[in-house]
């Protein structure tokens, strides 16, 4: 990140300075060009001036030459004329030729000067005239003395005059040239003087610019150096990072096709850094055979799309180990227009293995999560059905979290406010606030709260009864929290109030019943006993003197009184079965049946009855009630035995499981003792099998079989007291089987 920033900073700086440099460079270039142009022009001017000077000198020289040639030819002529020696004619001819040459030269030299040309032309005329004179002499007969010729004299004079003319003409021309020379000289001097000043000043400016540019450059260089150091550092860092994070980098120049690997990329392949030539083929050697096609595609992609998205493949390192790699590359275009794909290749083998582990862990988590979700959903439904809400108090943050239903219980939309104790207190019934406050304090100090019952006023204004239980809980990460459940127990509360009221009523009823029992046992028994006693008194003392009619009626009174006694006794026994203390203890039913047989021995004997029983179990029960149960059942069988047929009673027991006995309507695996009392008595229609257990219910007339219809009702009561069941199966004239189920207790 830091590197990136410094790089962009450098870029900007570089950019700025390069523009600056360009400006300075351009200015310097222009200045130099300007200096060059000026200098060139000045030098040109100077050379022109010197050329002109030279020209002037040449012209002057040539004019001097011309004059000397003319003089030479004059001299030669004179010599010839004087000596008449033709030897002198030779130099004359040479001089004349030279004069001509000189003229030609001068003509050339002064070609650009009209005035000099004119002067030259007039000079030529004069010289010509002079030569006309001289040539006259040369062709003269040498024997004639022309000196004596008048014409000659006149001509001589004339030619001397012409010579003067030539001279003056020449001088005139020299003068003109000299004036030119002067003019040019002054111009030349002027230029010679200006040029260095201009050149120097421009040079000076250029120097200044260069110094400034140098200063700027030095500054830039410093900056560049600093940037370079940063770059070096980051390069070093990235080098370390490569080793540490097991990644290597590569560059693929798309223009040249050159591929470069970082040191660590070689290490990833398991070879010494830079020990191989980087390239597609080199790399392919290490690619896992199954992934070769994949990697080829990757290479194609790099070239084609100039980009490489995340790609995964395997290699086989030089040491033969299979490693998982991941590559990514991006196109980078530098300022030179080089298109390079810069890439990173990471060894993700460890990560891959971790990932595999993570994936399997994740699968487990997903599964667990799924189960949790199901559980969560079902608990949500349970909360709604069970009218309870749950909450969590986090001890780290002291924040509450409510379940949706907890909000609903308060009459609010789920998660409609931030749950806090203060917020909760707003709902709590004013009279119950102290309960919640105390519980909260206890939760914060001791991390425990007692089960609390309090009322709240719901948003709809209804008062509801809440019950809260909570427990502190430490989760797997060691965070402590209190998890609580709050239930709306209003209905239960109402029911319990109802129940209490009913209980009160019931208690009152029982009290009344007890009082009735008291009345029955004492106040009813007492007059009856007296009636019976009086009857016995009359029977003893007055029977003899009574009429038959009186005796008959007295006997009926006695019977009715006796029956009343039986009824009252049975009734008392029945009510005592309900009321008596139920002291459960181990009861050996073998002992019980023996006692019952003992008790009924007279009865059994009278009827020649037989009671068979195999080994009976020991059960948990109330001893005297069991006794009564067995006695009642036995006596019932004896009572309803067939006339003239000896009663046979078989008693047998077995251990059973509730679900196997359809009559119990119980699918549980609860175990019972099943005890059958089977007789060969008169039996009854099966339809009465339930009726016979009702109080005071009788299937037979009182006169046929004595009984109050309480005995079997007592039996049923006793069995029910023992959480058991009693059923009767019967067929008229065949017999009855009473089946008792008593819970199996070990």
């Amino acid at each position, binding site marked *: 990140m830091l590197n990136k920033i410094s790089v962009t900073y450098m870029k900007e700086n570089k950019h700025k300075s390069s523009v600056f440099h360009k400006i300075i460079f351009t200015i310097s270039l222009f200045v130099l060009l300007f200096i060059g142009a000026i200098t060139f022009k000045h030098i040109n001017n100077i050379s022109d001036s010197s050329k002109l000077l030279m020209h002037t000198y040449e012209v002057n020289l040539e004019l001097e030459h011309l004059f000397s040639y003319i003089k030479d030819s004059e001299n030669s002529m004179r010599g010839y004329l004087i000596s008449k020696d033709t030897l002198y004619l030779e130099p004359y001819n040479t001089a004349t030729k030279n004069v001509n040459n000189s003229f030609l030269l001068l003509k050339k030299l002064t070609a650009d000067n009209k005035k000099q040309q004119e002067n030259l032309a007039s000079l030529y005329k004069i010289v010509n005239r002079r030569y006309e004179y001289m040539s006259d002499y040369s062709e003269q007969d040498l024997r004639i003395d022309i000196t004596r010729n008048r014409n000659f004299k006149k001509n001589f004079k004339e030619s001397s005059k012409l010579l003067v003319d030539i001279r003056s003409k020449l001088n005139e021309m020299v003068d003109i040239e000299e004036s030119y020379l002067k003019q040019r000289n002054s111009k030349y001097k002027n230029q010679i003087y200006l040029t260095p000043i201009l050149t120097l000043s421009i040079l000076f400016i250029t120097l200044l610019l260069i110094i400034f540019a140098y200063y700027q450059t030095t500054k830039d260089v410093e900056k560049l150096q600093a940037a370079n150091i940063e770059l070096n550092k980051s390069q070093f860092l990235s080098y370390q990072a490569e080793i540490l994070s097991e990644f290597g980098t590569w560059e693929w120049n798309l223009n040249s096709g050159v591929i470069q690997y970082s040191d660590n990329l070689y290490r990833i392949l398991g070879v010494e850094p830079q020990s191989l030539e980087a390239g597609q083929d080199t790399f392919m050697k290490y690619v896992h055979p199954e992934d070769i096609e994949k990697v080829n595609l990757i290479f194609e992609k790099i070239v084609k799309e100039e980009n490489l998205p995340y790609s995964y493949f395997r290699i086989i390192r030089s040491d033969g180990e299979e490693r998982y790699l991941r590559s990514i590359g991006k196109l980078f275009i530098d300022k030179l227009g080089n298109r390079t794909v810069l890439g990173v290749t990471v060894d993700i083998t460890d990560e891959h293995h971790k990932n595999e582990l993570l994936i399997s862990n994740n699968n487990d988590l997903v599964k667990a999560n799924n189960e949790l979700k199901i559980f969560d959903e079902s608990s949500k439904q349970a909360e709604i059905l069970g009218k309870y809400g749950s909450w969590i108090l986090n001890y780290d943050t002291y924040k509450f979290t409510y379940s949706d239903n907890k909000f609903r219980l308060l009459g609010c939309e789920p998660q409609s406010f931030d749950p806090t104790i203060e917020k909760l207190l707003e709902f709590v019934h004013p009279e119950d606030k102290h309960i919640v406050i105390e519980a909260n304090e206890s939760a914060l100090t001791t991390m425990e709260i007692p089960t609390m019952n309090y009322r709240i006023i719901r948003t709809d204004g209804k008062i509801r009864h809440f019950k809260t239980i909570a427990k502190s809980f430490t989760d797997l990460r060691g965070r402590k929290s209190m998890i609580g459940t709050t239930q709306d127990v209003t209905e239960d509360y109402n029911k319990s109030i109802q129940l209490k009221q009913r209980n009160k009523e019931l208690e009152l009823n029982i009290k009344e019943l007890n009082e009735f029992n008291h009345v029955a046992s*004492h106040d009813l028994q*007492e007059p*009856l*006993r*007296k009636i019976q*006693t009086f009857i*016995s*008194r009359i029977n*003893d003392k007055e029977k003899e003197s009574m009429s038959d009619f009186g005796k008959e009626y007295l006997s009926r009174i006695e019977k009715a009184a006796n029956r009343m006694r039986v009824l009252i006794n049975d009734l008392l026994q029945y009510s005592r079965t309900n009321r008596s203390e139920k002291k459960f203890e181990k009861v050996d039913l073998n002992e019980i049946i023996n006692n019952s047989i003992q008790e009924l021995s007279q009865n059994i004997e009278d009827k020649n009855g037989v009671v068979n029983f195999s080994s009976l179990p020991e059960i948990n029960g109330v001893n005297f009630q069991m006794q009564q149960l067995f006695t009642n059942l036995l006596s019932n069988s004896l009572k309803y035995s067939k006339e003239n047929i000896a009663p046979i009673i078989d008693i047998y027991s077995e251990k059973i499981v509730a679900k196997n006995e359809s009559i119990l309507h119980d699918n549980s695996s609860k175990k019972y003792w099943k005890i059958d009392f089977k007789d060969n008595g008169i039996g009854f229609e099966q339809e009465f099998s339930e009726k016979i257990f009702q109080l005071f219910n009788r299937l037979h007339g009182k006169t046929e079989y004595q009984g109050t219809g309480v005995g079997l009702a007592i039996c049923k009561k006793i069995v029910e007291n023992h959480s058991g069941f009693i059923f009767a199966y019967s067929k008229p004239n065949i017999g009855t089987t009473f089946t008792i189920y008593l819970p199996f207790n070990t």
Partner: protein
Amino acid sequence: MQQDFILITLADDDEDDRLFFTDAFDELKINTVVNTVNNGKELLSFLNHPETVLPNIIFLDLNMPILNGIDCLKEIKLNDKFKDIAIAIYSTSSSEKDIENTFVLGANIYIKKPSNFNELKKILADVVTINWQYHTNGLNKDNFLLRM
């Protein structure tokens, strides 16, 4: 016993029962002197009367107005003078509770009033002729209630 007759006192609020009781003894050929009182309070004042010769056996009904049999029994047993008198509980009730209570409080025998005069005679004869010394020594809850 120095007297040749047995002194018997019955405390019972029921007039009929008192009649049966005295009739029964009248018909029995045993030398007894029977006197009756109407309730516990009368019994105690009778016993405390200086001229009274203490009875040999007291028959005590449980259900009595003013002072019932149980409280009366307690008073008698608290008094050193009376505590050695044989006490026969004579009640219509045969509830376990009453039997247990009176046994614990030191009664000597428990009689359930029969509903037949001949039975009554037999019971009273049995009780009066019991050797109290032996009976009291071997007394337990099972033989406390006199069974016919």
